[in-house]
């Protein structure tokens, strides 16, 4: 039994933590979020140089051959900085699909640039009617000529406006809720018939609505076998859930620790606020919830590393707990900061908003409790 990071993992954590400390002060983040791109292209290159973009990829692909623990380490530190760069969209989601579907030359053609920071991706999967049901796909793919013709709409696609390539899911056979019959395609956002409407999200990230009208793609745009994308979508979503939980945990640590500090400094009624038991007990509850989340994140990550998708039930448990704890810790942090808590001036407000959005990605607490109980 050992919960310690290996030496390499510890080095990775230290280097991401140092980057966050150096580059993600609140004012810097706000500036980036409000900029043209919504993140820093320079940072993205730094990620490439430091090998972070290659974390989950095999060494023969140019990666560092990391597993779920390495991804967790990176995401948790990103969470502590509210990092804006589209790591989840490009490396975890997009890269997760590509490394499972591409072969030979094409694999090298795409994974190389991705790891070198020259290719950004977005996973255009979710549709409005689906909410979080991954199998609910009505966008269609039909064979035409020597390729495919795609039609449909994808919603809240993170990094959809900046991605060089989109990974689009569409139904090539079967009914709306069938797991069988879903296919994945690589689509150039500049291709005819692709309409991308990009916008900011409440947490300072970027997303897009994507409409596909008779979009013609070549035969080699199909990723994996036609109609057989479900197992890939499932595991990529598993990895996204783990990544989001790790990111959330990093944010929760900041939220509770900032509150512990603030309430000790803030004087009301001639005492530091922590002299009032109603305050100190709630700080303890925040801390307890945080530790529980951490335990379940470790459990989920380790089980996933061992058993892959068979660990899905524990992943759901983790996303559920992170969701409920995120609400409790976030709301309590705001409440105990009083008026300051509801402003954009302190970083905690920004961390709170990120927790809310994480709760809206890949299933909220209720959704995952239902899956856990099923």
């Amino acid at each position, binding site marked *: 039994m050992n919960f310690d990071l290996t030496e390499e993992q510890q080095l990775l954590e230290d280097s991401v933590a140092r980057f966050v400390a150096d580059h993600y002060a609140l004012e810097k983040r706000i500036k980036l979020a409000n900029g043209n791109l919504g993140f820093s292209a320079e940072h993205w290159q730094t990620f490439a140089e430091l090998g972070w973009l290659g974390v989950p990829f095999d060494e023969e692909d140019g990666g560092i051959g990391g597993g779920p623990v390495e991804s967790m380490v990176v995401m948790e530190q990103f969470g502590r900085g509210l990092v804006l760069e589209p790591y989840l969209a490009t490396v975890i989601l997009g890269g997760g699909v590509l490394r499972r579907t591409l072969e030979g030359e094409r694999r090298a053609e795409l994974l190389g640039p991705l790891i070198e920071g020259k290719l950004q991706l977005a996973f255009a999967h979710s549709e409005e009617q689906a909410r979080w049901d991954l199998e609910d796909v009505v966008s269609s793919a039909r064979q035409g000529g020597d390729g495919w013709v795609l039609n449909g709409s994808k919603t809240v696609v993170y990094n959809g406006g900046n991605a060089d390539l989109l990974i689009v899911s569409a139904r090539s056979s079967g009914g709306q809720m069938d797991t069988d019959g879903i296919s994945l395609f690589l689509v150039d956002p500049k291709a005819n018939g692709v309409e991308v409407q990009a916008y900011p*999200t*409440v947490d300072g990230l970027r997303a897009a609505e994507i409409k596909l009208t008779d979009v013609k793609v070549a035969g080699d745009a199909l990723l994996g076998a036609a109609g057989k994308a479900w197992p890939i979508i499932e595991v990529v979503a598993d990895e996204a859930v783990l990544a989001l939980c790790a990111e959330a945990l990093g944010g929760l640590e900041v939220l509770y620790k900032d509150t512990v500090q603030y309430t000790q400094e803030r004087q*009301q*009624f001639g005492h530091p606020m922590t002299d009032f038991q*109603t*305050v100190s007990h709630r700080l303890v509850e925040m801390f307890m919830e945080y530790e529980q989340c951490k335990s379940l994140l470790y459990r989920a990550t380790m089980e996933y590393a061992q058993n892959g998708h068979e660990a899905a039930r524990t992943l759901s448990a983790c996303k559920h707990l992170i969701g409920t704890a995120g609400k409790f810790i976030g709301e309590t942090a705001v*409440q105990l900061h009083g*008026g300051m808590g*509801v402003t954009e001036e302190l970083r905690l407000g920004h961390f709170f908003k990120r927790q*809310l959005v994480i709760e809206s990605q890949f299933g909220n607490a209720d959704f995952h409790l239902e899956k856990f109980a099923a």
Partner: protein
Amino acid sequence: MDIELSADDLKFRDEVRAFFKAHDYKPGQDYAQWRLDWFKAAREQGGWDVPKWPTAFGGPGWSPTQHYIWEQETARANLPWDLPFGVGMVAPIIMNYGNAEQQERFLPDIRARTVNWCQGYSEPGAGSDLASLKTKAELSADGKHYLVNGSKIWTTMAHIADWIFCLTRTDASGKKQEGITFLLFPMKQDGIEVKPIITLGGSHSVNTVHFTDVKVPVENRIGEEGKGWTYAKGLLAHERTGLAGVSRSLVALEKLKHQAGTVKRGNSSLLDDPSFRAKLAKLEVDLQALEFTELRSLARAASGQQPGPESSILKLKGTEIQQRIAHLTMEAAGPHMAPWGGIHVGPKFASGGTQSYLGSRAFTIYGGASEVQKDIIAKNVLGIRTQGGSN
């Protein structure tokens, strides 16, 4: 026990409905003019523009039941915007503690809604512990004016306000509740600097206000020097009873049900989702209880009794329920809670829902944070003697 409205009450309700219908805003109308006309017409109804004012000052003299009906009906109607600071807050203080001259000078404009007020209470170091405020007011040697220096924070609508009612410290030697003086002065003058505070949803309604050598004539002081805390406390109690918002919550809950019905989930709607339904139902149960808590409180007032213990929980429960409705609305939007910046993606209510939720977090902070409210209930209602508490 009887929960039926009397024939007179029903008649009153019909009159209110008829009034709202007859004076509703029509598309294309000049809003500002419609607003002033609306209040004028309400005044002609017999003081409907100032429902809570005593009859001596032109109020309608309604029974508690009539007030309840009014609140219920206004929650559904489209009323002109109105800030609470004038009619609801400073006016009662001027009526109770101001002199005849001040009443004549300030009340007519407040009533006509032609002058906007803001409230200068909280300070950077004085939030829940309001009485520790430090903004200094020094009387000039000739006794003709005060010189005000200091800072206020969370001052809602200070950037559009014409006047401020302000708690200032004229004496720091005694107990902190003593030595506080209540002053009124214009906002648009030298020495007053208003800086916006951007709140979580990115909107601007609160501000910090800095005073540098602001001259306030002594005739703008309400009541006696050093008695401002007593005057403000009466108002704070008033503020605490107005915030349950039961009628508005009932309307909001109905709206939420409708909205959830428009959210697709596969081939059905979110209303068929068992966990969402359970949360909606739980909210409705709590709100049904709160509605009758408010009615019990009203019934006591109607029969001329002192407010009962039940009235102390109205703000706490009311704001908690408002926050839960806001949260559930955001949750109903699912992945579409995130799109921001004036963009409309997914269900129609989505971006507004997130905005409301973020805004609702302040409900348990302003007007006395929930923690302080509970201290007050512990002491005043349960009779618990607290040590080192907030009161």
